């Protein structure tokens, strides 16, 4: 397992009474108090959290976006990140896709008894770093511990709120025939980074997850292009194909893709080929799809490509009037195929 990409501890771990999380740490008693005080509260410090109340009281004025997501990834440490930064970036990105500016997050842990304190600390540091980068405050939370065997190391839930940017008008109803479909970077990197560590499939690569906050990139685009950005979505589980199928079904318009335009890292492409997986269905984390008005497609793409996270961005297709409700792709040799929903999980094939 490549270790070099694991988050380097920047905060020294405080001295805890135990090397591992015990049931007592979730009891609500003294151990919980100590874990929170010398662990969670200190590292995630902010004015609202410092009040140590049952809930967060914050002031917000305007149209608000609200999102929640649970993170149950295995392995919890992977090339390019861990479950901690994933949990922050995931909810930040979901809010961002609504055209909102993420501001406050809640954070809830369900930890399996026996989980290493050192690993928990490492995850907390990543959470702090990701929250700092994304400019969000973690203002309320919860910690529960379940018996050994009743969970898988650690699960995290984050919820978040943010005010919708006044220039944003993101809704699938705004998608029109002729709109261009843009992807913000290489597809399938996150899923293949995880796959490369799964039991039975370990293979040597330098593939790293793309987990990152999309907030600043997307806010800049909204400032510039406003309501000409008709739709945005981050294609996480189920990949690019699933998002496009969802919006094809909702809008009853056709979505036409060109295979040769899909940006993909060569190693990721080769790993997919080797395992018999279609990169269109592989999960992403720090990636978004945008459906934009044709007239702004080029300047939008240029702006995106000038951003560090968007250097591989590409126009991958357009919205059409035929094949309503379907996603069709022109193959690399010029033939056409449908791109449907994935049924269940993608499984590696026999030969």
């Amino acid at each position, binding site marked *: 397992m490549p270790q070099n990409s694991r988050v380097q501890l920047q905060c020294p771990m405080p001295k805890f009474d135990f090397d591992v999380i015990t049931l007592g740490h979730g009891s609500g008693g003294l151990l919980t108090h100590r874990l929170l005080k010398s662990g969670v509260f200190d590292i995630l410090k902010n004015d609202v959290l410092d009040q140590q109340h049952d809930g967060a009281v914050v002031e917000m004025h305007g149209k608000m976006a609200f999102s929640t997501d649970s993170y149950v990834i295995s392995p919890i440490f992977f090339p390019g990140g861990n479950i901690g930064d994933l949990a922050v970036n995931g909810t930040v990105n979901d809010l961002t896709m609504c055209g909102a500016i993420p501001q406050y997050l809640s954070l809830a842990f369900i930890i399996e008894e026996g989980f290493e304190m050192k690993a928990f600390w490492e995850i907390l540091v990543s959470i702090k770093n990701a929250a700092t980068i994304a400019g969000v405050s973690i203002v309320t939370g919860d910690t529960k511990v379940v018996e050994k065997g009743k969970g898988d190391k650690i699960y995290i839930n984050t919820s978040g709120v943010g005010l919708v940017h006044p220039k944003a008008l993101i809704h699938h109803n705004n998608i029109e025939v002729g709109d261009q479909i843009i992807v913000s970077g290489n597809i399938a990197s996150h899923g293949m980074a995880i796959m490369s560590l799964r039991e039975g499939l370990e293979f040597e690569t330098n593939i790293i997850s793309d987990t990152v906050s999309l907030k600043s990139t997307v806010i800049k685009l909204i400032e510039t292009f406003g309501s000409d950005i008709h739709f945005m979505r981050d294609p996480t589980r189920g990949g690019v194909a699933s998002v496009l199928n969802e919006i094809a079904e909702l809008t009853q318009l056709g979505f036409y893709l060109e295979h040769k335009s899909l940006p993909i890292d060569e190693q990721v492409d080769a790993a997919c080929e080797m395992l018999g997986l279609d990169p269109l269905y592989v999960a992403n984390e720090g990636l978004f799809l945008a459906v934009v008005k044709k007239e702004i497609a080029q300047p939008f793409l240029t702006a995106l490509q000038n951003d560090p996270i968007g250097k591989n961005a590409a126009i991958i297709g357009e919205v059409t009037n035929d094949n309503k409700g379907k996603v069709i792709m022109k193959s690399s040799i010029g033939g056409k195929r449908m791109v449907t929903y994935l*049924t269940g999980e993608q499984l590696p094939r026999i030969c």
Partner: protein
Amino acid sequence: MKYLNEYRDPALVEDFIKEIHRITTKPWTLMEICGGQTHSLVKNGILEMLPTNITMVHGPGCPVCVTSISVIDEAIFLAEQPNIILCSFGDMLRVPGSKISLLEAKAKGADIRILYSPLEAVQLAKQNPNKQVVFFAVGFETTAPANALSVVHADRLKLNNYSILASHVLVPPAMEAILSDKDNLIDAFLAAGHVCTIMGMEEYYPVAEKYHCPIVVTGFEPVDLLQGILMAVQQLEKGEYKVENQYIRYVQREGNAVAQKTIQQVFEVGDRIWRGIGNIPQSGYEVNDRYKEFNARLKFQINIPLAAENTACISGDIMKGLKKPKQCPHFGTKCKPEHPLGAPMVSSEGSCAAYYHYAQADVESII
């Protein structure tokens, strides 16, 4: 990707398409053997580029599809035993047995691991001396050497907790079964490149000769398939029936001698029931006497009744080239990947799955 993009070159594809159109004067029916070839044809949109008088029908070369329902029941039975870890290739998991699939058995608590190589199962047996590890050894001649090698390794390591549930099938007997069927429509075969990489081409000469049927050993990429089709049509138009090799970058006439030797060391040829087709004599591998302690069928008391196949599924007719997936009355209605009537709808190499995912009937301008 180097060594792959060359075989997906649009300009080369166009040249082959033009040449196939130019030389085709009569209607011909060609069968590609392997499910990987079927998926490549449908996924790349090649079928709609071919002349209308060339019909591609899709052969039985999907190991998941032809594994009999009783064998899947055997695997589920073993997986449900408390002390057994059942290891399998990924795409066997979704295939329905007589009651449930391995995926459902896993959800109900059976210890089923998805592995990429049988040698990993041997490692697992070494790491878990108190458990019995069974590898579900399915596939054509392509996967047989690695599965055989796992037995050789386990024997060398003196592991008494490793065995395989073998369900290997062989291509040439299936081709003969198809060609000798009274309703046979096939004019030429594209033989499976990977199978021939292991087994070579010798076995195919008597088949081509006996049935006057051209056989072109073919690869899996668009350029491979179109060149294979062109070579087969050239023969048909000239009235020839030779065995030819399109997949020269991997296939040698004598095949891979080391791999063949490993197969012979561990397996013996016997009759095999093919799902949808029935019993084909001398069409499968079973673990031989020398390695019988690694045969899961002999090691464990598998006490289950022989299951009947779902008669609503026409996979047998499809795999014999008599029907196409969309001619099945249940295609996309009663039979979908989420609730399949038969295996070809869920296997990643199944022809019904290829049509369902890439070319459903209600799509404009798609075959």
